[in-house]
């Protein structure tokens, strides 16, 4: 049941992504190219998704628990930190270079196009690199001031 529902939710998400144009890097990059071949379509994607999610979450999160799991796992932190801001800034640079974001690329994988698979493999490499970062920081000891 958990499998089937997760699969179907993924399908709804994927169809949404593809229909919206988020799986098409040409459209995504044009959304950001205000000074060039601007295509404002993606404002409508964000608007539609946010309206439904904001309204839906309000009702859903009032319930004691989700239907197929024990608890809601929702981030509780509200403070801003350097890691969040730097990470977001870096993410944007990558998105601007490639035109794909992870949510756009995963449904696009289904087209079987090699470029998409290569992009997803690169994203995975980046995720791996970010995961070993804290270890690296902890690793070498700080030079002691004489």
């Amino acid at each position, binding site marked *: 049941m*958990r499998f089937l529902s*997760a*699969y179907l939710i*993924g*399908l*709804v*998400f*994927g*169809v*949404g992504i593809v*229909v919206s144009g*988020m*799986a*098409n*890097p*040409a459209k995504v*990059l044009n959304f*950001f190219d205000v000074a060039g071949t601007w*295509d404002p379509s993606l*404002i409508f*994607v964000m*608007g*539609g*998704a946010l*309206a*439904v*999610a904001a309204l*839906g*979450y309000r009702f*859903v999160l009032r*319930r004691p628990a989700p239907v197929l*799991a*024990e608890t809601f796992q929702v*981030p509780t932190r509200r*403070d*801003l930190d350097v890691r*969040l*801001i730097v*990470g*977001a800034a870096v*993410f*944007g640079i*990558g*998105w*601007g270079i*490639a*035109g794909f*974001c*992870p*949510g756009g690329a*995963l449904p*696009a994988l289904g*087209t079987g196009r090699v470029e998409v698979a*290569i*992009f997803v493999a690169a*994203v995975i*490499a980046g*995720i791996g*690199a970010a*995961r070993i970062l804290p270890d690296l920081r902890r690793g070498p000891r700080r030079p002691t001031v004489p």
Partner: protein
Amino acid sequence: METAFTPLTSLAGGLLIGLAAVLLMALHGRIAGATGILSGIVLPAGWSEWSWRAAMVAGMASAPTAMMLATGTYPEITVPVPLAYLIVGGVIVGFGASLGNGCTSGHGVCGMARFSPRSIAATLVFMATTALTVFVIRHGIGG
């Protein structure tokens, strides 16, 4: 390269993305963030954490075929950048989204929908750096 302005289909797609996010929360209690889901697949923390994410990605990847069966046309995907951009951009996307705990779906949709200050800040920041990057590449270096 120009792309057509598609407010209605983009809105319809957005509504479906929002619906999927709400369903995932209502049924599984999880945030529909693509980077978090992908991380949980490649760096699994046990079977139960891995399996629903794998099923969800399988569902996402089925979307183009499902649409082909339903409408008879394959979705249009045009990659207007060289392969090297996809590789370099992909690594940067994965690194940044992992460091910043989210991407367009996680922060931009799910986090913003919860009015999370962290997600609102992250979304504003990455929208700005994405636009700046596109501007520099299209109008700064080559333009």
